[in-house]
């Protein structure tokens, strides 16, 4: 039996609201991509019948719209939590405005992507590259909400979709809005593929329990990393302690 004792500390990284956000988001994105793809490219599952007898395409669209509302409010909540949550979920993690964040981005590229350098990335929450990628996905989320509700506004009189109606004339008409909405869907799919792979990768390489951290909220972090994080004053004051 191979076993070892390594000085590790358990750190509560992801609070319950963050974890809930993550899984609701994952569910919504999955449902939205599947239903969205069907709406964009409907399959021929029935013919030779009359429209009176079925409503499956309408149901697919209904599921898409309901998920979209859930996705949107979930996203709004996460934005709020970026100002209310703990240090790992705060907004400043996601926008690389500090030099040290850019340094870590370069490090992560060398260490984890190109694998030309061997060292450990210290970040306890997301590393700076991951955070930045999440920031880009947030922008895509926003664009997807804008284009989606923009198209939806034509068939709704409720105030929320109406707030997005301006995007249609801004992009010159529904045609371009729908095209953009469809292209962005692929952004979600590509992100999901890479995201899931990288979770496996980090769990395998770093053995910090990153996969289960999104379920339980706790991560195993090396003692010296935690020490340094707690004593950190200069360089990258990510925390407000």
């Amino acid at each position: 039996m191979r076993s070892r004792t390594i000085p590790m500390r358990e750190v509560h990284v992801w609070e319950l609201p963050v974890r809930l956000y993550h899984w609701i988001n994952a569910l919504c994105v999955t449902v939205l991509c599947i239903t969205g793809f069907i709406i964009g490219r409907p399959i021929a599952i029935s013919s030779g019948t009359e429209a009176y007898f079925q409503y499956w395409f309408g149901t697919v669209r209904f599921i898409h719209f309901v998920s979209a509302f859930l996705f949107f409010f979930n996203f709004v909540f996460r934005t709020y939590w970026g100002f209310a949550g703990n240090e790992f979920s705060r907004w400043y993690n996601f926008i690389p405005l500090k030099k040290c964040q850019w340094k870590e981005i370069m490090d992560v590229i060398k260490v984890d992507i190109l694998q030309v350098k061997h060292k450990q990335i210290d970040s306890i929450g997301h590393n700076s590259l991951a955070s930045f990628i999440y920031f880009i996905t947030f922008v895509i989320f926003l664009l997807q909400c804008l284009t989606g509700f923009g198209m939806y506004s034509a068939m709704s009189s409720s105030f929320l979709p109406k707030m997005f109606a301006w995007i249609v004339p801004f992009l010159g008409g529904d045609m371009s809005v729908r095209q953009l909405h469809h292209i962005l869907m692929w952004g979600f799919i590509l992100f999901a593929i890479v995201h899931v792979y990288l979770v496996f990768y980090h769990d395998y390489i770093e053995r910090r329990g990153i996969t289960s951290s999104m379920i339980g909220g706790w991560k195993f972090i090396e003692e010296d990393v935690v020490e340094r994080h707690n004593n950190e004053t200069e360089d990258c004051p990510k925390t407000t302690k």
Partner: protein
Amino acid sequence: MENKQPSFYEEAKSDGISRKDFLKFCASMAVLLGIENSGVGQIVKALETKPRLPVIWFHFQECTCCSESFIRASHPIVANIVLDKISLDYQETLMAASGAAAEDAYKAVMAKYPGEYIVMVEGSIPTENEAYCCIGGRSAKQILEEAAKNAKAVVAWGNCASAGCVQAASPNPTGAQPVHKVISGKPIINVQGCPPIADVMAGIVVHLLTFDRIPQLDALNRPKAFYSRRVHDTCYRRANFDAGLFVESFDDEGAKRGYCLYKMGCKGPVTYNSCGIIKWNDGISYPIQSGHPCIGCSEAGFWDNGPFYQHLPGIEGFGIETTADKIGLGLGVATAAGIAAHAIVTNVRKHKEITNAPETATTIDNSKES
């Protein structure tokens, strides 16, 4: 002679149109415009009393299909409006005058009714080189700018004048621009379509005349009465869409049964127009009713958002047949390949490092950097 312009009704009466037909026309216009019952009287009164609208109708880079559509309007009075009442001041295609006499006609209107006349435009305006469209030795841009300066409003007929249509399609060799890109500071009504529905055009004219102001417009300056709903939302085949019954090819059983044309490239879901309600040629039919998908002719850039028989546009620079889905799938495969390569490298390079990790005490040597 020019002291009193005859009203629409007076002119119609002198043309032998009965009072009954006149009232029927007023009622049908009220219905088209979505005016309540009591508003019919307003239309009747306006057409009875108000002098005819001074109109200058320009043809720039276009095919005259808007005029063709207009003169085929279902009601005889509509044809009357265009042929005899509003447009004879200046309408290149239909006017009797030619040459200098024609030029004089519209200059006379501009001089006589400053701030009152309406400029109606068919066609786009070249800006790459203004010489691409010249009339009487002057460019379309010069003519339009001059005429619009003292106009009450500008009506942009059709997709050319509203969005550039085929002339503005990539690569747009003449630098064709719609009216709203060339002039500013004037109310512009974009009456979209290639061509617009005749009854819609007549409705706009009646509205201008009755209420002395431009109709309510949407964000793209299209009259809300006619362009606030998608062809899709008023389509009689809509039930088949919701039921997931689609035509898969033009000669299949679904096509015979009148299933939804969505998969044949129908642009109904992204097109705002009244085709499904007012229809064409005296309300006989419209493209979808005749078994052909909507091509989205009342939307900006519908030529570039082709092909017509593919409902999501192709992506420029990747060939005609390339869609977002093909590119997305390609990127997906590339990503998967990249992940596979990365996973292999990870195992080759790091497997040893992980299995040989120290069994006690400090972890992998990492404290020097960062």
